[in-house]
């Protein structure tokens, strides 16, 4: 365990306008060494990434910008600031709360999972992850039936008339949906921590309580910051939940939706969406700046022991209480969702019935197959894209790479409604470059493949960012020397990634695949404008049922969707584990 020395080397991986910090040896040597290694394969991958990004987030975004800066779009933009300043702040407050609370709970759950010994950890792990699979509207609807004015818990058990609509409801449901991002990110980082650091802390006489704040938290700060970023952006761009549980708490995302869905005002929506990008981008830059300053290299490639469990009651008790409360909430919401599919009207008429599932069978048989097929096509591409971007950003193009990073993040930063419109605008007709037809129409009922290609592209755009952030924070944690050792032994950069880097980031890989799959299967707003008669998707049918007020059908459909996602995730997990084993052996 003599590697504790390298373990604590701070490695800011280069930041814009920071020549002062250039004297940091690790940064200098890093970029110097990497220069001659920008071999052809790196350029090929860069080109591939740029092509994919141009397709999924380039053309559609350009089309949106053009509409946003048309006169109607500019009016809407000005209006968003002038008339809707309050709405704007609402969005920001919501994003901040979701980001802070979600990251905090994610940290606690990851801490309990890693450092505290107790029975049922495996079950807890899966329960914490469960809300990842949150079909639009389902969680919010379940929360209303539990905690609404006539909620089964608030009103039924305690006789309260609690107003869940508005900020409290929104924060609860959004935090629940996105906490798993933070959990997975932070847990992955914990697993890569060097136990020697903790041994050092304890032999220097630090209490476990002190170690938590002085060692543990600082070590995983990059993961916490990147989680905060994802949660903030998801929080302000989410549409489905404000529509169900927003009450009088108005946010920009729903305003955009009303502009488009009400009067087909595409320019207006694009204008407001641009306004929504401002806070998202601000947080993005702040986070990147901090993460670079605080990044800590902890993976050195040398064999390490295992983490010693924490036993101090001052640490374990509060952690366990928070984690258990959280799990209880998740359990209640998902139980009511499952039960809701089997009873006539949950909370009103609890008689058993199959009718909801019969309806789902009649309605959704072809949508289920289509959704699965499209997801299986999109998820691997999204994960690969995320990995490629992260690798280029962290290892090869620390400056220019930031643009790639930001570009990829647009996939969640642009509200789904608007992104979907961008796709409709960009791909309803064939793409022409210098009078040559480069691409046939890809979106809409007239397109090649019945519009399926555009939907796969949306899935890629939406599925990439979470994995991208996970890979970036994982890569920053890995000492470049590990990879250099591999290259100097004659491995190509790609071999190094496959055989050395990727196995060290298995947790980020799981995060990225998980999110690519769940995002694809639960994306709704982005595809409203591009679903076609030939290509139906499960979520849009769930939305229709919620719209029609038939929650039972929506619950049944959502339960089915959740089970399907779990099956797909389970298979993906087994596959990943086998890959990992074969690599490690």
């Amino acid at each position, binding site marked *: 365990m003599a590697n504790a020395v390298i373990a604590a080397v701070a490695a800011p991986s280069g930041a814009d306008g920071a020549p002062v910090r250039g004297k940091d040896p690790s940064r200098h040597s890093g970029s110097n060494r990497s220069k001659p290694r920008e071999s*052809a*394969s790196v350029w*090929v991958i860069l080109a*591939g990434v740029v092509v994919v990004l141009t397709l999924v987030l380039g053309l559609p975004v350009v089309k949106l910008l053009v509409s946003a800066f048309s006169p109607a779009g500019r009016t809407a933009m000005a209006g968003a600031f002038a*008339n809707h300043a*309050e*709405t704007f702040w609402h969005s920001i407050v919501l994003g901040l709360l979701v980001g802070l609370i979600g990251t905090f709970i994610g940290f606690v759950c990851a801490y309990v999972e890693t450092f505290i010994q107790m029975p049922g950890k495996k079950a807890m792990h899966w329960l914490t992850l469960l809300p990842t699979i949150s079909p639009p509207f389902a969680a919010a609807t379940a929360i209303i*039936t539990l905690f*609404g*004015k*006539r909620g089964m818990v608030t009103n039924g058990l305690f006789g309260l008339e609690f107003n869940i*609509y508005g900020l409290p409801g929104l924060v609860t449901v959004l935090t629940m949906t996105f906490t798993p991002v933070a959990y997975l990110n932070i847990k992955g980082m914990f697993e890569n921590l060097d136990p020697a650091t903790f041994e050092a802390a304890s032999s220097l006489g630090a209490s476990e309580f002190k170690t938590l704040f002085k060692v543990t938290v600082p070590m995983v700060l990059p993961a916490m910051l990147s989680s905060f970023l994802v949660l903030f952006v998801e929080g302000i761009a989410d549409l489905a939940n404000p*529509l169900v549980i927003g*009450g*009088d708490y*108005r946010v920009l995302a729903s305003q955009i939706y*009303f*502009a*488009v*869905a*009400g*009067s*087909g005002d*595409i320019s207006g929506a694009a204008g407001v969406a641009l306004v929504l990008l401002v806070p998202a981008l601000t947080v993005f830059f702040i986070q990147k700046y901090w993460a670079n300053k605080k990044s800590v290299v902890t993976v050195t490639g040398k064999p390490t022991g295992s983490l010693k469990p924490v036993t101090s009651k001052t640490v374990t008790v509060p952690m366990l209480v928070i984690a258990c409360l959280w799990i209880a909430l998740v359990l209640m919401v998902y139980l009511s969702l499952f039960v809701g599919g089997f009873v*006539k*009207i949950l909370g*009103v008429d609890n008689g058993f019935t199959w009718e909801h599932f019969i309806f789902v069978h009649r*309605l959704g048989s072809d949508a289920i197959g289509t959704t699965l097929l499209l997801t299986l096509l999109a998820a691997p*591409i999204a994960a*690969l894209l995320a990995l490629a971007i992260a690798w280029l950003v962290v290892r090869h193009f620390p400056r220019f790479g930031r643009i790639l990073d930001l570009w990829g993040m647009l996939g969640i930063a642009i509200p789904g409604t608007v992104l979907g*419109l961008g796709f*409709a605008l960009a791909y*309803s007709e064939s793409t022409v470059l210098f009078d040559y037809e480069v691409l046939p129409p890809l979106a*809409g*009922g*007239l*397109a*090649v*493949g*019945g519009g*399926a*290609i555009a939907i*796969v592209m949306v899935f890629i755009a939406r599925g990439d960012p979470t994995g991208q952030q996970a890979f970036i924070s994982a890569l920053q944690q890995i000492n470049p020397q590990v990879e250099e050792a591999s290259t100097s032994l004659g491995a*190509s*950069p*790609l*071999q190094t990634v496959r055989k050395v880097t990727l196995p060290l980031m298995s947790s980020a890989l799981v995060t990225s695949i998980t999110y690519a799959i769940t995002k694809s299967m639960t994306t709704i707003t982005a595809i*409203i*404008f591009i679903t*076609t*008669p*030939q*290509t139906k998707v499960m979520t849009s*049918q769930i939305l*229709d049922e919620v*719209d*029609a*007020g*038939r*929650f039972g059908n929506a619950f049944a459909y959502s339960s089915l969707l959740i089970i399907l996602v779990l099956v797909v995730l389970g298979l993906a997990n087994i596959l990943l584990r086998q890959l990992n084993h074969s690599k490690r052996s």
Partner: protein
Amino acid sequence: MSKRSQGKRALAVAMAATALVAMSGCGKVDSSKGSGTVSIACSQQEDFCQAVTKAFAKDTGIKTTYVRLGAGEVLARLATNPGEFDVWAGGQAENHLLADDKGMIEHYAPKGAGDLAADYKDDKGAWTGFYTDSIAFCSNTAELGKKGVKPPVSWADLLDNKLKGAVAMPHPATAGVGYMAMFTQAVLHNGDKGAAIDYFKQLNPNVMQYSKSAATGTEQAGRGEVSVAIALDSDCQKAIKAGYPDLKTTYPTEGTGYEVGAISVLKGARSIKNAKAFADWMMTTQAQNLYAEVPSYAAPTNPKAKIGDGVPRQDKVKKVDWNVRQAADARDAFIKSFESDIASSSSAK
């Protein structure tokens, strides 16, 4: 160089995958370009869309596909992707008229339109009505009882202080009934739009949430999350039948607005013949009888069609004079001022 071959391999896999999707879909597109298909933008509830397309396909042998979309969504898609749909079925006549103003509609009077009452069709054939229903107050009598409020029988009753945060109102931008309520107020105030806006400003503190769709309100009322919903009488009836026995439908005595759900043939249809055939078929007694079977509680426009059990009797409802042209023209301004003057001041309460 193994690294290159790997890059290429990945690319090849991606390309093969894309090609696969492309090919699997190609077949579909080819078959749908034949004369035997019709593609429908359906602005009705899913089960109704399903029932009519299935029945039409069975009757005629024409392959029928649909996407369920709200009226605003249809308008947006007709603009971004013209030619995608052949027929637009469902949604208020006003919206069809707006599409017609943008030149998206092929005028056509379906066979059988002659039997319809005058206010159920457009003179020029831009749209033809196939169902109708009215705005009502959908009250949860148990909740109202707790508050000591009687089911509202006038628009003014909704302004009662005791109903603070207890009224559901659909958002006019996305739910037709929301806009209908606004236009109704304008008609009741002799066309004074300012007075109509004022009414909704006063109502605002009582509204818990402006819901995206019309049926959400009846669901909220049924659960007791709100006490009264401004809703379509057909939706309220549907909720009662679905298992919310506490719900009760009442109408404002000063008069209420109503909708005519319309069908129109779209310009640039791939098969104009099939599109027209579908429009003709929707006017038949047989098609309109499906309402009773689904069941949907809107009333069919065909006077010979059977009126299902529990369908609100539209001839008994006191209605305001409804000018579709004016309702269409006023829509944009009304929705804009709703967004800027009413909904955004929500948090004032």
